[in-house]
């Protein structure tokens, strides 16, 4: 299901600006992501990639500019605000609880309560429902689980990151943001996470992916947002550009010829 770029973007940002003291981290930066696409954000160190997605997921507030969720202006004051609006973020530093099992991690902070008195008054959790739901969900993402009861610490790094990604996928209604999801992983482990990201996109949920890993970006992304000096320099189609072109653009070694000017 290819993305339709004539529709309203799921998230759109106009002219976001953010200063840290005298440093301008975002300089009238524009952004949009559409349903059904993987949008990669690339850029040199300090280009403002992390600042941009922090503004989108409520982790920081821009000094000026607007953010629209499905065309409606939104102001996120905290990551919880963004989460409640359906925007999930996977953090770089493996935000899982190692001693808890897979099901508990998937439902952490969003536990299903038992029906009736037990849940409403005693706040008892419904283990069985959570176990079945997480088993079904992992299966739908093509992760075969033999035992949802193993603690996450006994999984490999890639599997753990997979759990973190799956958790976001389970609860995201609009978009998933991932900042360097494969940075800490080996080749084989990255593969598992990349497959998962594609699976999520194919289910219709757009993915915003920040990565320094050009092969990963060019393999996965439907469009590539090139961030430079706090601004969006260009959006390129990875099928029409080479990796070295993209790197040259993002480092300023080359200027735009026929990339989509923005």
């Amino acid at each position, binding site marked *: 299901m290819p993305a339709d770029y004539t529709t309203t973007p799921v998230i759109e940002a106009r002219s976001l600006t953010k200063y840290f003291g005298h440093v301008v981290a975002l300089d009238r930066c524009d952004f949009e992501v559409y349903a059904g696409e993987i949008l990669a954000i690339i850029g040199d160190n300090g280009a403002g990639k992390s600042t941009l997605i922090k503004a989108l997921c409520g982790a920081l507030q821009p000094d000026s500019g607007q953010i629209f969720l499905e065309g409606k202006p939104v102001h996120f004051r905290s990551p919880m605000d963004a989460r409640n609006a359906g925007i999930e973020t996977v953090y770089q530093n493996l935000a899982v609880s190692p*001693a808890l099992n897979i099901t*508990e991690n998937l439902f952490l902070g969003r536990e299903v309560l038992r029906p009736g008195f037990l849940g409403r008054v005693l706040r008892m959790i419904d283990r069985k429902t959570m176990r079945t739901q997480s088993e079904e969900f992992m299966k739908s993402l093509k992760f*075969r689980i033999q035992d949802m009861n193993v603690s996450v610490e006994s*999984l490999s790094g890639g599997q753990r990151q997979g759990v973190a990604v799956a958790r976001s996928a389970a609860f995201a209604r609009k978009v998933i943001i991932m900042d360097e999801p494969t940075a800490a992983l080996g080749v084989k482990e990255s593969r598992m996470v990349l497959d998962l990201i594609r699976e999520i996109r194919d289910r219709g949920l757009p993915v915003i992916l920040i990565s320094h890993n050009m092969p990963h970006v060019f393999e996965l992304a439907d469009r590539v947002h090139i961030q430079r000096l706090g601004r969006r320099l260009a959006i390129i189609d990875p099928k029409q550009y080479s990796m070295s072109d993209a790197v040259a653009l993002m480092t300023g070694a080359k200027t735009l010829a026929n990339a989509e000017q923005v």
Partner: protein
Amino acid sequence: MTTHTLEKSESSEAIPTRSSRLSLLLTPPFGPLLFLFIICVIFTVLPLLRGQEQRFLTVQNFALIFQQTAVVGVLAIGQTLIILTAGIDLSNGLVMALTSVITAGLAVHGFGPRGEALYVDPIVAMLIGLGVASLAGFINGLLVTRLKLPPFIVTLGTLNIAFALTRMYTTTTINGLPQPLLALGSAITVFGARVPLYALVMLVLFFVVWFILRETRIGRHIYAVGDNREAAALVGIPVNRVLLLVYTSAGFLYGIAALLLLARQENGDPQAGQTSNLESITAVVLGGTSLFGGRGHVMGTLIGALVVSVIRNGLTQQGANPIIQTFITGILVIAAVAVDQLSQRSR
């Protein structure tokens, strides 16, 4: 132990998880339970070998062991909650002492300077005691969450404050407790042995807290906060609220321990509880709960507390020097912490 795998179906590459026999053995409370069983066997066999009368393996003796475990056991429940959040509480014994003298003092002498004292109903005195203990826990929690001070330092401070307040309130033992304060000391007969109510109160509290930790949302959040605080905050768990609740509930439990202590000693003793902090930590650690937080079971703590009591009881029956018991407990604590540390490193 079976190997668990989480694998992609197409590639069907099975990545075996790092299974550790060590960790299975230590999975509380199986390890501690096995250990408790072994020492019980030893103390049962010893008199047989020495041709003595069997005094260890009797219902009366086990009733006595539970009775001796009650106060420190309840303190250790609160300690377990705090250690599960990767904290520690050094103040619990002295919060208990403060609570018990205030409760006893109010019930016996009433409120206000002596002579013109206001009568305080013993039940009201008990409620005030529980309030004081909960407040002490709440203050610990506030200092840990708002000022972000390490629990070790905070509770070292409140330990001293509670000690000073206890001494300011009274330096002498308060005798002549009215009946309601002694009610928990009355006994019922179980399998022919007299078991005081306060020992049963301890068991009930262990079950209640076990249930909460295992089956309720807040229980799971306590584990999550202790396991990876950052991750818990990122998924929207109100970490500070959970911590505040844990410290306040622990305080409330110390208040109950104070009531059990009054019923057991039948007086209000300003000298009480001075080594209880270490005894409660010992019980938690021997029960297999990790000092790093997020791992452990309150039932392990019950077993840990029983281990200490059984060793004391058994050695006393064997006529050993009581100080040997302290020595052995010290070795056990170091062994338990070493195992915790080693399994932490292998993670």
